[in-house]
């Protein structure tokens, strides 16, 4: 293996939140709230500071050598199977580490205010810290297995936090749904890891870590024949974690958790793990045009599919949840057309503005005495000025309005989709359409929530108040980031340097093995698509105009002419509206195709035949019956007659001796 810099700070980025989770979780209610909150926020703050330190060290290194590692020892080692327990940071995981700990820190601060009156305060922060630990293991893990440990860890924390208020049956059910749906994806992910292992193990040199990302990248060529299978299996895992079709159904239900959880786990960080994983394994994905095609197709279909559902939802968090699914679709689309750097760029900008929007919605819900239905909101602009202005910035960023962060990343994704060999006009058109819908439903949300007259009851109305500083401060910081965060990816055609893409370029273009086997795809993957500045300007202008149109129409319909919305609703006898409102009946379809048959199969076959018949009947009672029959035969010999024993003994010995004498 090539030598590289070591950095023993890396382990503490991961371990400090774990220690805080252990202390906070074990002491729980014995700690005063201030101490528990300080401990949790402090731990994530330390983690963030350390991430910045190591990241700065990376920036001072030459571009091609930006890689630091911290090996804590051997995890599994026998034969030529060697798996280390260690952490690494390269430009890609560095960016992710900063986003996770940075946004995570702000959301922790926000939670101090949001959860202040909750009984499970200590438990909440212990779970949150545990989540940061798992997410950092996922991001900084040195090999696939460490990533998988983090992957499962964030799944666990997601489950614990969705079902945080488990006294309500619906919340517990939402938690279970998230966990089970994720398990389906994880099953595919695990099979992918096994396939990598069996393919690679016979080819490894002494001491080379199996599953280590460096080894995988080095030997990508060996895996080329099975690359499609590996990538599709890994991608199944990504569809679970990153809420893509067909496994997206858990994310909207996950809104049952506290709002900071929705912001941290179900918008900014965990759900982007699938995108991160695909980007991390880019050297494999570029070997398989089929897998790339599937990723792009699933991404773009998810983007438009979720955007249409978001048009009709009335729960403020559900709209944002479907919007998240839609944006994750964009990220997958970017991965699928080979623009991994842009995908990560969108991960980052999306983390800023979607965390902002969720925290803003949390502030609204807080002010509205836990009301989430937008139909009884309205007119909150005056009462919640900070929330309103920051929320508006988040909306503009999500809608892709220049110069907010979302414009740069979304526009780049659409441009790469349009120009890449792996993309084309059709995926671009679908993505473009979804962008307009995004602007429209976000404006609908803003108008229904903040403009017009308040439609709440008098009692709720009297309680409306702006949130405390611990909640508004993170909003302001995230709003600033949502404004300027995109500027580091200012594209070439607008006179910028696309610095973000350049920073990540070494990660996405150094596939040694890949170069030979996937040369055709690789050109596109490295982002070396044909530059057509004129076309780029036109498309950027078009998507900006399209976003503004979406916002304008949204404002006009819901502010001035609500009758249009009503007549749209009744279009085609109200059938399209009903389909959208019921989310295309996907949950019902799954209920009919998987859950009911699965239940009937379990009840009638697995329980009544396999368990009661085979296991209880044949195996358990059957083996007891065999023993009983054998015993009843042997019992005949135990008759208590000493002379019978003596005879048996004598005859037995005689026969035995005769046998020995005559058998030679």
């Amino acid at each position, binding site marked *: 293996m090539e030598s590289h810099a070591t950095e023993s700070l890396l382990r503490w980025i991961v371990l400090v939140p774990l220690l805080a989770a252990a202390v906070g979780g074990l002491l729980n209610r014995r700690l005063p709230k201030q101490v528990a909150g300080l401990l949790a926020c402090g731990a994530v703050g330390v983690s963030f500071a350390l991430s910045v330190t190591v990241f700065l060290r990376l920036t001072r290194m030459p571009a091609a050598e930006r890689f630091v590692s911290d090996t804590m020892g051997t995890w599994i080692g026998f034969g030529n199977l060697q798996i280390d327990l260690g952490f690494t940071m390269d430009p890609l995981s560095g960016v992710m580490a900063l986003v996770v700990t940075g946004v995570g820190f702000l959301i922790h601060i926000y939670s101090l205010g949001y959860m202040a009156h909750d009984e499970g305060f200590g438990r909440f922060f212990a779970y949150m810290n545990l989540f940061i630990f798992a997410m950092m293991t996922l991001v900084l893990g040195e090999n696939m297995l460490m990533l998988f440990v983090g992957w499962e860890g964030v799944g666990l924390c997601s489950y614990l936090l969705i079902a945080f208020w488990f006294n309500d049956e619906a919340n517990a059910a939402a938690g279970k749904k998230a966990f089970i749906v994720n398990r389906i994806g994880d099953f595919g992910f695990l099979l992918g890891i096994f396939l990598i292992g069996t393919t690679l193990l016979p080819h490894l040199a002494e001491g080379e870590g199996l599953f280590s990302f460096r080894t995988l990248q080095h030997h990508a060529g060996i895996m080329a024949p099975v690359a499609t299978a590996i990538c599709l299996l890994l991608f199944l895992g990504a569809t679970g974690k990153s809420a893509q079709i067909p496994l997206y159904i858990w994310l909207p239900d996950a809104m049952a958790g506290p709002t900071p959880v929705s912001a941290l786990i179900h918008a900014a960080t965990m759900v982007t793990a699938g995108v991160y994983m695909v980007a991390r394994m880019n050297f494999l994905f570029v070997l398989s045009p089929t897998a790339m095609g599937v990723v792009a197709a699933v991404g773009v279909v998810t983007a438009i599919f979720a955007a249409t559902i978001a048009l009709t939802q009335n729960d403020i968090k559900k709209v944002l949840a479907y919007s998240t699914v839609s944006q994750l679709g964009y990220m997958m689309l970017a991965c699928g057309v080979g623009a991994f750097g842009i995908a990560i760029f969108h991960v980052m900008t999306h983390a800023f503005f979607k965390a902002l929007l969720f925290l803003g919605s949390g502030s609204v819900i807080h002010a509205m005495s836990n009301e989430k239905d937008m139909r009884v909101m309205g007119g909150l602009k005056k009462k919640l000025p900070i929330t309103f202005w920051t929320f508006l910035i988040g909306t503009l960023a999500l809608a892709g309005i220049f110069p907010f962060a979302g414009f740069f990343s979304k526009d780049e994704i659409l441009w790469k989709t349009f120009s890449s060999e792996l993309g084309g006009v059709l995926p671009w058109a679908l993505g473009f359409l979804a962008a307009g819908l995004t602007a429209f439903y976000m404006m609908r949300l803003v108008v229904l929530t903040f403009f017009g007259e308040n439609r709440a009851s008098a009692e709720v109305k009297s309680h409306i108040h702006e949130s405390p500083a611990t909640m508004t401060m993170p909003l302001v910081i995230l709003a600033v980031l949502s404004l300027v965060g995109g500027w580091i990816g200012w594209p070439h055609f607008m006179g910028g340097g696309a610095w973000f893409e350049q920073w990540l370029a070494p990660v996405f273009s150094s596939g040694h093995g890949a170069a030979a086997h996937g040369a055709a795809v690789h050109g596109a993957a490295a982002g070396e698509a044909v530059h057509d500045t004129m076309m780029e300007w036109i498309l950027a202008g078009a998507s900006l105009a399209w976003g503004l149109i979406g916002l304008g129409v949204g404002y006009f319909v819901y502010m001035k002419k609500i009758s249009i919305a009503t007549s749209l609703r009744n279009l085609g006898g109200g059938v399209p509206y009903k389909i959208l409102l019921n989310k295309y009946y996907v949950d019902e379809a799954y209920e009919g195709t998987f859950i009911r048959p699965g239940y009937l199969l379990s009840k009638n076959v697995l329980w009544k035949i396999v368990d009661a018949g085979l296991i209880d009947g044949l195996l358990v009672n059957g083996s007891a019956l065999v023993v009983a029959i054998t015993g009843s035969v042997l019992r005949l010999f*135990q*008759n*208590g*007659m*000493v*002379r019978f024993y*003596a005879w048996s003994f*004598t005859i037995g010995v005689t026969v035995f001796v005769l046998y020995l004498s005559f058998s030679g």
Partner: protein
Amino acid sequence: MEITLTHYLLLAMTVFLTGMVGFVVRRNAIVMLMCVELMLSSVNIVFAAYSRFHANADGHVFVLMNFAVAAAEAAIGLAILVEIFRRRRTVNVDDLKALME
């Protein structure tokens, strides 16, 4: 007439068969115990005879050890029988069936 190894073996066989037949046909536990002792003694005769005719002392050693074993076994066996007789007033093995099944 010279006494050969065969004579010793015939003697040992006679003693052994006596013991064996007695062991299976008699019902008195004390007699059965004595028959076991007879069989053991016949084995001792074989050991001693072979030892003498092969000019090897190992057999004698075994004989001495067998005496010790036989003495111990007889002591325990008799002790058990005495105890059984005290409780049951009989040493007829056909009446001692408490351990069946």
